[in-house]
């Protein structure tokens, strides 16, 4: 098998197959990417004198972000970075990935009709356009008339102003709600690919649900978990939709990096700054991905030793 690797497609055919995608990616991803890298070392902007005569400023954009005079200030880069990492951990890893896994695990036990109903509802949250979803949540959370407060009122709970009192928790729940479908789909498919005989054997051996999950399922879907973690982490670092709910406020309590970047860089079209932040986020994403891969490998190795 290994000796045949790569034997299926001749290099001419391979190039022909890759050309259309390569061309489009080259034009609309790779070129803009290097443009951004280059711009992150300049003070280029869309408007103002720096648009006409951008200057090379070296690492200034990066150093400004970490300038001790402004780094930890209210609405500064430091709090935003820290908040974003928490946002990723809570809303993406604990929220979307774990929730997706739970949903996929639950749907296995449901009747086909119940399963398609549950999954359909979860999918709805994922496929609807941003503006619609933003508006829906806005109506949902309204303090005076929102659905959630009407519900709480019906249950004799006091009304709460979620966007002011618990803004960060709210956008975490929002993001988990919004994106859980992708992980659910991915894990659902992955679970279906596990031969039922594996689990039946475990049943015969009297394994508990958790044991089955940990010892049989988890090792088999490890690759999917890593793919999912990489994508979800990246998407969450870039997600701008919470802006529709909170605009980063109140008092920067939901000032995640995409909102911060928009506020300080793109609103005034300061591309140098914005590009520097983009590069930093990319490096953080890279670190997260390497961490996931390392984790998966360690799991593989540990399991190898165990058996």
């Amino acid at each position: 098998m290994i000796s045949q690797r790569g034997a299926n497609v001749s290099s001419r055919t391979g190039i022909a197959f890759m050309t259309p995608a390569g061309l489009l990616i080259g034009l609309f991803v790779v070129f803009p990417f290097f443009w951004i890298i280059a711009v992150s070392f300049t003070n280029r902007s869309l408007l103002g004198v720096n648009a006409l005569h951008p200057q090379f400023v070296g690492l200034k954009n990066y150093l400004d972000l970490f300038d001790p005079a402004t780094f930890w200030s209210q609405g500064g880069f430091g709090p935003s970075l820290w908040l974003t990492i928490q946002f990723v951990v809570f809303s993406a890893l604990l929220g979307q990935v774990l929730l997706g896994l739970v949903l996929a695990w639950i749907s296995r036990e449901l009747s086909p009709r119940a399963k398609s109903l549950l999954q359909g509802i979860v999918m709805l949250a994922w496929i609807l356009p941003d503006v619609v979803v933003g508006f829906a949540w806005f109506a949902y959370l309204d303090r005076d008339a929102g659905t959630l407060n009407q519900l709480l009122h019906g249950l004799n709970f006091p009304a709460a102003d979620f966007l002011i009192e618990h803004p960060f928790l709210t956008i975490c729940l929002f993001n988990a709600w919004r994106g859980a479908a992708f992980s659910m789909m991915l894990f659902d498919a992955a679970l279906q690919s596990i031969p039922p005989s594996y689990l039946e054997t475990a049943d015969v051996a009297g394994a508990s649900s958790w044991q089955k999950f940990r010892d049989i399922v988890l090792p088999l879907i490890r690759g999917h978990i890593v793919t999912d973690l990489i994508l979800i982490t990246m998407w969450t670092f870039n997600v701008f939709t919470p802006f529709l709910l909170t605009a980063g406020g109140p008092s920067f309590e939901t000032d995640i990096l995409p909102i911060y970047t928009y506020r300080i860089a793109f609103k005034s079209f300061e591309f140098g700054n914005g590009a520097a932040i983009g590069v930093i986020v990319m490096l953080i994403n890279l670190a997260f991905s390497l961490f996931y891969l390392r984790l998966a490998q360690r799991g593989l190795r540990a399991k190898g030793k165990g058996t």
Partner: protein
Amino acid sequence: MNRRTLFSRMAFSVGAALLGAAFALPLIWFVFAPFNAQADLDLAMPKPPTLTNFARVFANRAAVGALLNSLLQAFGTVLLVATTATLAAYALARTALRGKRVIEYVLLLFSSVVSGSAAMVPIFLIVNALGLIDTQVAVILVFTGGLLPTAMFILRDFIASIPRGYEESALVAGASPWRAFVDVVVPVLRPGVTIAAVWAFVQVWGGFLIPFVLLRSEQRMPASVEIYSFYSQAGTPIVPLLAAYSVLYSLPVIALYWYVNRKYGFRFFGGIKS
């Protein structure tokens, strides 16, 4: 069935129902508001239910045209993404290129950086150089470029699951690489392509920045841009119209999901394992 399992089954069902309800609740408002001529942010039964909101929305011809533009952009992009990503991901998986996984990952990272506002300048300049400003083709091409790395990333797991023997036997039987690809690989890949296609469709459907930067004529703008015409003089949402338009704007994606789910089901693997 003993009492304990019965109890745990019930607890499980209740839990699943609650989870489903939690997901459905934020959207309940959309069931009533579009049919309420006096809709506001509260959840109220329309008295009486009416279609006037829809009638007023349909009177806005630009907004209705925008839905067609969205369809054009979304279908155009999906076709292009599906074909080019499948070809490229397949070729990449089947070549002896070293570090191809790294390449896929690096492209994925690049595309995440390029998603923001900063990238719109170089993209605008390229599109301008191509003479394609204010054309649907430009929107489709730029969307496709941006979505391709992720689509390829999603597809690679599916391709990896196809036994090489499949195409080999076709090639041995004298088929061209293209025929082998179309007749053997594509059918097996369909679940994966479906996932990538729906994902791409959703991205284009909600995408604001790209059409907004590249298009100028109102008659070419998609619904994601045109929905803002349902904000009043004061810049506040005209709630009843926005609710009605949101429903129209959402129906195509819902229909697509429903159709695809029925027809193919959402599965990542075709049930074939080497």
